[in-house]
């Protein structure tokens, strides 16, 4: 075909060249002659600034502020933007050494040359004021404002928890967090992290050649405002908490106080405790190491994680189970036969109420035998299996042997142990165990362990005459007062309330009637109902006491544990509980002599309470 159009190739070639030339011209306009872009080339111009929301505050049940924030400043650096820095002057302004400077900048560079990392953390307002006006001389550095926690009353450290920097696991789990962000590490700060933290905002700023933010990029079109965290309104009574911590000073142990009708936790003390302000700011790392290596474990919340044999307190629950099963009646009497199991000297109990009052071991041995050996099977082993299964089911309804669904981190929560048939089958072998093997459970020894909060909950169950609401720390949160539905639900034991009236009467006698084991808990005018216990231990036994008051329409239920205290529940735990009930119901304690005595006396003087004590001893 034709080559007569061959000349047209020139037209095509010229078109190609013209377009190329047009583009080069346009590029020259953009890159060489346009002042707008030239300016922007000099400006180097945008910086992503994260705006951190203020973390939500935490209040007590009366609206008293427990936790709030204070502003601090992080010095940020973008390594590749650091230019013409007068290092000596810079170091002098920040009061750091040259080696320190090199180390920090190297660390930042290792993370990334292009994106910002923290050069120096948590500079106080005063320090920041000193070099604020010098910032323009430090290209590549800028300030990012953060908030730190501050605690006006140094109480409830383990409950409130602390805030720390995110670790790798947090970063992998949730992409909201960036390196250097803060996250709740324990306590309420952890379990309500997503409520408290709010939402980060973002600001894109123009930065000029002198490292000054000259204004928002595009009038802030791409910016997002931080959304402040929600406030938590807790169930704690700050005064009661303070008083309880005061009484538990010099001791090891814990206190849990619950409002029975709502399941709201009024106080939760784990002793020894620490000042939550210790775990804030730049001193955190050092203090954390110190607290963490303390042999008394002040950072543990004993009320949730401690597992103790329940001791005699368990007898209250056992009598309820037996009555409900109908294997005993309220007026069943058993002789105090010390050949079965040891006991102290007292007359034989003629009713359940008396048995609780006297805490008679042989009585509850008999009761428990009737629960376990119901005579369903001739074979004692099979019968015990049958009985234990029913008993285990009852115990679960009391909230034992499981993590109570409290709104504190589940990782810091123990289940306790209520042995079931599988447990003993594994332990002894199938059909190799019977009542005679497991009778210690009847008096709260043996394989049974409970957690202090479960014991406080038992007190609440008796106070409520047969049900509980899961204990919890937060009433509601946020501007909309969000409540958690699950903390409005009743958990029924399914046991007739009239049986609980018997238990309550027995517990009233424990405190008020001659022969009761907790006369020291008595407060005139307050119908305190209680039950003592002694949790056996390798060292000195633990002193345990649960109680509720008043007897009718109770306002407070409580468990008090004093570790390694000689003398049983009546000696240590009961009088402390008495003081706390008096404080809560009357608002003040009139028995100042008693108060003084229990505040100062140290029941476990032989044991070092903290590391510092241990060191002092060495010296």
């Amino acid at each position, binding site marked *: *075909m*034709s080559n007569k*159009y*061959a000349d*047209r*190739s020139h*037209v*095509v*070639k010229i078109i*190609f*060249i013209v*377009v*190329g030339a*047009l*583009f*080069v011209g*346009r*590029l*020259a306009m*953009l*890159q*060489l002659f*346009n002042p*707008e*872009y*030239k300016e*922007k*080339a000099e400006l*180097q*111009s*945008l910086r*992503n600034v994260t705006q951190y929301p203020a973390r939500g505050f935490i209040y007590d049940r009366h609206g008293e502020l427990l936790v709030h924030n204070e502003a601090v400043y992080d010095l940020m650096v973008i390594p590749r933007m650091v230019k013409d820095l007068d290092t000596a002057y810079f170091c002098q302004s920040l009061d750091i050494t040259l080696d320190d400077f090199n180390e920090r900048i190297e660390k930042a560079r290792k993370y*990334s*040359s*292009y994106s910002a990392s923290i050069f120096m953390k948590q500079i106080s307002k005063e320090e920041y004021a000193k070099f604020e006006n010098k910032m323009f001389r430090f290209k590549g550095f800028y300030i990012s404002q953060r908030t730190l926690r501050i605690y006006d009353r140094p109480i409830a450290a383990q409950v409130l928890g602390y805030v720390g920097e995110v670790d790798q696991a947090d970063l992998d789990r949730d992409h909201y967090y960036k390196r250097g962000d803060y996250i709740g590490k324990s306590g309420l700060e952890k379990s309500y992290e997503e409520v408290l933290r709010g939402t980060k905002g973002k600001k894109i700023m123009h930065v000029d050649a002198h490292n000054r933010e000259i204004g928002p990029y*595009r009038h802030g*079109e*791409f910016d997002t405002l931080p959304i402040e965290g929600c406030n938590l309104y807790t169930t704690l009574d700050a005064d009661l908490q303070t008083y309880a911590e005061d009484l538990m000073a010099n001791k090891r142990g814990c206190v849990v106080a619950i409002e029975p009708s709502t399941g709201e936790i009024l106080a939760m003390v784990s002793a020894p405790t620490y000042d939550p302000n210790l775990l804030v700011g730049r001193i955190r790392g050092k203090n954390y190491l110190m607290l963490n290596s303390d042999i008394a474990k002040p950072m543990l919340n004993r009320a949730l994680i401690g597992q103790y044999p329940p001791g005699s307190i368990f007898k209250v629950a056992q009598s309820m189970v037996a009555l409900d099963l109908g294997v005993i009646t309220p007026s069943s009497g058993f002789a105090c036969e010390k050949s079965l199991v040891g006991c102290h000297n007292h007359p034989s109990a003629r009713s359940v109420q008396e048995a609780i009052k006297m805490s008679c071991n042989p009585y509850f041995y008999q009761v428990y035998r009737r629960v376990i050996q119901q005579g369903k099977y001739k074979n004692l082993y099979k019968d015990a299996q049958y009985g234990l299964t029913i008993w285990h089911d009852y115990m679960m309804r009391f909230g034992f042997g499981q993590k109570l669904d409290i709104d504190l981190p589940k990782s810091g929560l123990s289940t306790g142990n209520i042995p079931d048939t599988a447990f003993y089958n594994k332990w002894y072998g199938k059909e190799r165990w019977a009542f005679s093997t497991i009778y210690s459970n009847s008096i709260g020894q043996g394989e049974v362990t409970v957690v202090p909060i479960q014991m406080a909950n038992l007190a609440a169950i008796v106070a409520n005459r047969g049900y509980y609401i899961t204990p919890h720390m937060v009433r509601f949160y946020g501007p909309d007062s969000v409540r958690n539905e699950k903390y409005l639900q009743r958990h029924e034991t399914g046991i007739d309330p009239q049986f609980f009236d018997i238990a309550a009467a027995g517990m009233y006698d424990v405190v008020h009637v001659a022969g009761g084991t907790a006369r020291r808990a008595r407060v005139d005018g307050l119908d305190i109902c209680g039950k003592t216990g002694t949790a056996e231990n390798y060292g000195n036994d633990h002193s345990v006491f649960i109680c509720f008051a008043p007897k009718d329409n109770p306002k407070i239920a409580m468990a008090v544990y004093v570790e390694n205290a000689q003398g049983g529940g009546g000696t240590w735990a009961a009088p402390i509980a008495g003081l706390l009930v008096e404080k809560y119901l009357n608002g003040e304690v009139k028995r100042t002599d008693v108060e003084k005595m229990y505040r100062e006396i140290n029941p476990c003087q032989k044991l070092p309470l903290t590391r510092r004590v241990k060191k002092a001893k060495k010296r």
Partner: protein
Amino acid sequence: MYQEKLKIDWITIALYAAIMIFGWMNIYSACYEESHAAIFDFSQFHGKQLIWMGLALLTAAVIMLTEPRVFSNMSYPIYGIVLGLLVLTLFLAVTVNGGKSWIDLGGFRFQPSEFAKFATALALAKYLSAIDIDLKDMRTKVISLILIAIPAVLVLLQHDTGSALVFASFIFPLYREGVSGVVLVIGVAAIALFIMALLVNKYIILGILALMAVGYLFVWLNKRSRKDYFRTLGIFACCALFVFSVDFVFNNVLESHQRERIDVLLGKTEDLQGSGYNVNQSKIAIGSGGIIGKGFLGGTVTKANFVPEKHTDFIFCTVGEEWGFLGCTILLILYNLLLQRLINMAERQRSPFARIYGYCVASILFIHLLVNVGMVIGLVPVIGIPLPFFSYGGSSLLAFTILLFIFIRQDASKNQLL
């Protein structure tokens, strides 16, 4: 066995390689992360692109080892297969960036529309190179247009406006083979009128057109026949109709994002968060490059992720920011050398098939360059098509390589007797 001494055009291959390697460097830089700096890190775009480049070279070698006749003989079958794939895509496509042009083959995605370009080039070259064909015939023109329009429409149905636009490039081979140059003029005039109609009051345009018509008739022409009057009036009427249809087309045919992009280009809106964002950022990136740029890996606007698609359609930003005006100009010169070379090569072919195909290759590459670079520097509305041999992407690199090397293969044995 078939034997011949190949005269491979190494200059073209050198230009191809230079562009591809420079492209890879820019992909590496655009997505640079210190934690993934290794060249053979195949989790990164630059590592993956290395695999694509290897595959492209392999494909090129296979093409060079194939008899040139195979391609001309297989033109229609290849065209048919690709059309089939395009139809299939309409049903099987996964959505990527609002377009539906990708087929997912078990985690491996490819884009049939990339391959439609060279398949159409083959078919058009085959058709026009037949002995009894004359482009003066209306029938020939219509069949040529149909050959081009079928794949174009199928691609358009995939919402891939960019790739559909590429089929307009066949205007150049048609022009070379004898279609009147008026088509080029009409094309340019239509674009000019379209832009003016959007910017200027329509009656002013009509006034100007009327003045031009009057001027042509009574000033330019000395003698006026009746035919001249009718022709002038006809053209004027067509232009007027076109001007008034612009609004309709603009508002009813174009999709909203296309309208916005055109408005942004013409400076009618400054939608900075939406459609104006890309171009604004790419202009800042390029503009901040200055004469010599910020140096390899030195870009900040592209690195700070302000420029989207920085490794694919907006890769030219990185060139502008890091290599500056000089780098951009050199790259554009490289492309122009390649285009000029391809036209020269096309003109030296003995077989019309090879010549027409050569024009198709040059034209397709040209329109990609025109639209892609034009978009990045704010001369053309934002239309997503890749920069040939340069942007990240396996399908496009492979398709461009096949496109180019089929022609190089034809050229290598141009002196063989047909």
